[in-house]
């Protein structure tokens, strides 16, 4: 099933001894990596292991400190993305790096627009854009600005762009982080087609299932060093995890088993009646009790994110009412929510989560400080204590707490955000795609942490595309479709099959048409 073209003697891509250091961090230390024609090659490692750095150094975003890269036997040293693209290397970087202000079509063809008579042929560009997106089952209005679409849609568009450009090498850095099962399946189909054409694919992910589903070989990094390269078939899962972590994974967390009766008897912490917003989510009822984990499941664009944004006051509901502790609550903005003891890790961490240039410490204490008000500053010593505690607790990989958070790897930023809210000891924590980009080790730890907190009475509202994850820790699942809450599964009913069934009923072609919404999130 691999390469149909005659395999040339040299590997497609040969990286030898690649090194890259940042201020105080050796992000890559003499790493070797080999990509063959017609191969899907997983690049794995913990958060901060250096995967993204490898990719950026390879494609000329960063200038390397040492080492060589050969493409089909010829040495290359691209000095920028543009040059890498000319060498037929297409890349999807970790954070979706598209331009929200340009239309979908413009994003797809930026720098290589179809031309006619010296001018951009916009008609042809639109037609070709639709064609490029077609294999992904995405029929969006290609003239609408990209920023109007959800993160997932943007990610698919980024993938489509890279695929369309990479005649030789395709690099995907955590492309599946916010995709759901169906979309992942579509992506894999595309990847397999490319592989059969002899294209080499580098694939970074934290989902081991996906690795075993499509990858031919695996390279593992740890702390900027190469741990080893294996054929997927020769590497059992447990060994892979051990390779990544440098230790055995502790026994999987087991779910808390509070009987439904016990939980239901508790008075709800927060309850929402007829809560909704025009053009956003249909009015819904939702009760959240202390100690329970409520999950929202649904397809891309089904309104999960909108629901949790309403609950946190990020968007203002125009219908219905909220009650907290039995008293009517005002939810006119995140500040109200924070005062009520809510916390919220948003889906788009770069845009709405981190405060990039502030240090890890400041990012962690920000919400706590905001709740206390500006007049009561948290003493520096205490800030450091809090930061250090969570850095240890969540295993945030950073040289020290004073490092600007934007210099951390993606997964570690996510952990710092989680720390921001945990530091406020919230009563209700809302997580939108919480484990996005988090490695297996940390994933397990976070789930353990969440369960401990729930045992202490914290309630959790989670949006996740990982149905297994949902099933693993939630006792109640609300299923959304077309921005409507359509079903609720409780206790024993919670299973992947039931969720899928609820999502799928009456939905002919789930991701076929995501229409851009008029609304713009502020």
């Amino acid at each position, binding site marked *: 099933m691999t390469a149909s073209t005659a395999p040339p003697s040299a590997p497609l891509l040969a990286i030898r001894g690649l090194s890259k250091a940042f201020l105080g961090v050796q992000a890559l230390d003499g790493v070797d990596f080999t990509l063959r024609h017609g191969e899907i090659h997983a690049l794995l490692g913990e958060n901060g292991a250096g995967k993204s750095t490898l990719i950026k150094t390879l494609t000329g*975003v960063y200038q390397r400190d040492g080492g060589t890269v050969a493409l089909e036997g010829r040495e290359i040293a691209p000095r*920028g*993305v*543009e040059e*890498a*693209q000319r060498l037929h290397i297409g*890349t999807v*970087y970790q954070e979706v*790096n*598209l*331009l*929200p*202000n*340009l239309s979908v079509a*413009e*994003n797809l063809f*930026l*720098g290589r*627009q179809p*031309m006619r008579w010296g*001018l*951009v042929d*916009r008609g042809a560009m639109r037609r070709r854009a639709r064609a490029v997106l077609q294999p992904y089952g995405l029929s969006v*209005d290609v*003239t*609408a*600005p990209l*920023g109007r679409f959800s993160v997932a849609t943007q990610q698919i568009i980024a993938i489509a762009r890279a695929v369309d450009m990479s005649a030789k090498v395709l690099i995907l850095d955590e492309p599946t982080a916010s995709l759901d099962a169906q979309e992942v399946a579509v992506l894999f189909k595309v990847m397999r087609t490319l592989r059969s054409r002899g294209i080499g694919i580098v694939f970074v992910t934290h989902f081991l299932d996906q690795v075993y589903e499509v990858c031919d070989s695996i390279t593992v990094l740890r702390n900027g060093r190469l741990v080893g390269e294996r054929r997927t078939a020769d590497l059992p899962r447990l060994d892979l995890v051990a390779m990544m972590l440098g230790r055995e994974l502790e026994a999987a967390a087991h779910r808390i088993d509070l009987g439904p009766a016990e939980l239901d008897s508790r008075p709800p912490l927060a309850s929402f009646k007829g809560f909704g917003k025009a*053009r956003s989510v249909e009015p819904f009822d939702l009760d959240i009790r202390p100690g329970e984990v409520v999950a929202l499941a649904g397809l891309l664009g089904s309104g999960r994110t909108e629901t949790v944004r309403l609950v946190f006051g990020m968007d203002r509901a125009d219908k219905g009412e909220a009650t907290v502790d039995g008293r009517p609550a005002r939810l006119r903005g995140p500040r109200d929510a924070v005062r009520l003891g809510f916390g919220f890790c948003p889906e788009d961490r770069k*845009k709405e989560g981190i405060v990039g240039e502030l240090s890890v410490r400041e990012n962690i204490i920000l919400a706590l400080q905001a709740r206390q008000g500006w007049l009561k500053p948290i003493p520096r010593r205490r800030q450091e204590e809090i930061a250090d505690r969570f850095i240890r607790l969540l295993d945030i990989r950073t040289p020290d707490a004073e490092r600007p958070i934007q210099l951390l790897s993606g997964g570690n930023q996510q952990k710092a955000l989680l720390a921001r809210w945990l530091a406020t000891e919230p009563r209700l924590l809302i997580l939108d795609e919480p484990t996005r980009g988090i490695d297996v080790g940390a994933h397990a730890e976070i789930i353990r942490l969440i369960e401990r907190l729930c045992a202490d009475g914290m309630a959790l509202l989670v949006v996740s595309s990982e149905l297994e994850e949902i099933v693993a820790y939630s006792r109640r699942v609300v299923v959304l479709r077309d921005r409507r809450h359509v079903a609720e599964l409780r206790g024993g009913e919670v299973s992947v099959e039931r969720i899928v069934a609820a999502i799928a009923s009456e939905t002919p072609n789930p991701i076929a048409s995501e229409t*851009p919404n*008029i*609304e*713009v*999130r*502020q």
Partner: protein
Amino acid sequence: MTGALQRFLPLVVTTAVLVVGFLICAAQFPNFASWRVVANLLTDNAFLGITAVGMTFVILSGGIDLSVGAVIGFTTVLLAVLIEQGGWHPVPAFAVALIAAGGFGAAMGGVIHVFQMPPFIVTLAGMFIARGLGFVLTTDSVPINHPLYGELNDMALRFDFGLKLTLPALLMLGVVVAAVVLAHWTRFGANLYALGGNRQSAELMGVPVARTTVAVYGLSGLLAGLAGIVFSLYTGAGYSLAATGVELDTITAVVIGGTQLTGGYGYVVGTFVGVLIQGLIQTYITFDGSLSSWWTKIAIGVLLFVFILLQKGLLVVWAGRGGEPAEA
């Protein structure tokens, strides 16, 4: 609402504001609703419009260019010195002026990119330098008496119904049309929007950041130079203090025209309308003629405020809710 209409909404709103403003003026003053006033609006604001087009590009790319007014002033002086004192023919003088202005802009773009310095500061220094060079050439105001100037000034396109488009007005219209094409039908235009949308992402998508930055400031300089030529035609003189404060006027026009100062969103046509709105405010005040210096300033401020509110208000009404891209 369809996507297209929604995207052009700011533009539609701005134009509506212009039309409503014109109707109000016409209702208030006799002689206002005349082709002469319309022609004046175009001719008098030609240099501003041309400069503002360049500024629109710079702002779209996420930058700003404070040097344009000074470049206009310098260009007029350079032309006057070359033609009157150096005995040059205006045409080669125009060429030299355009090259100098464009080169100056490109140099600023180079500094901005290579040294990663904020455009605000680099172009502010550019403004000092351009004014300073003007002073060094001559502090006097120098009349330009070349016959070609007279001929160019008499050139105009006359329409039967009474509209007379002078050369400056035609130049401005031409620049606007060319700019629309440049912005929306060339790769350079797309790169500009990309750069303004998010510099980092643009770079990761392979946009040639260096080249685009240098080119956009070069273009702005070039257009400021062209505006300088128009200005020197308009006044028939060179003067180192000419066009002071034009940078703020152009920025205002660009923003009234619906372009975001943060870059990435906006239209050249909007800027053109913005320039006309500003011209309309001035014409209104002149027609009224009763305002003292200070009331003039207050009135300009208040009208600016009203226009901006009107724009925001209409956007909210028509789009249902703030149709602007979220600021971040």
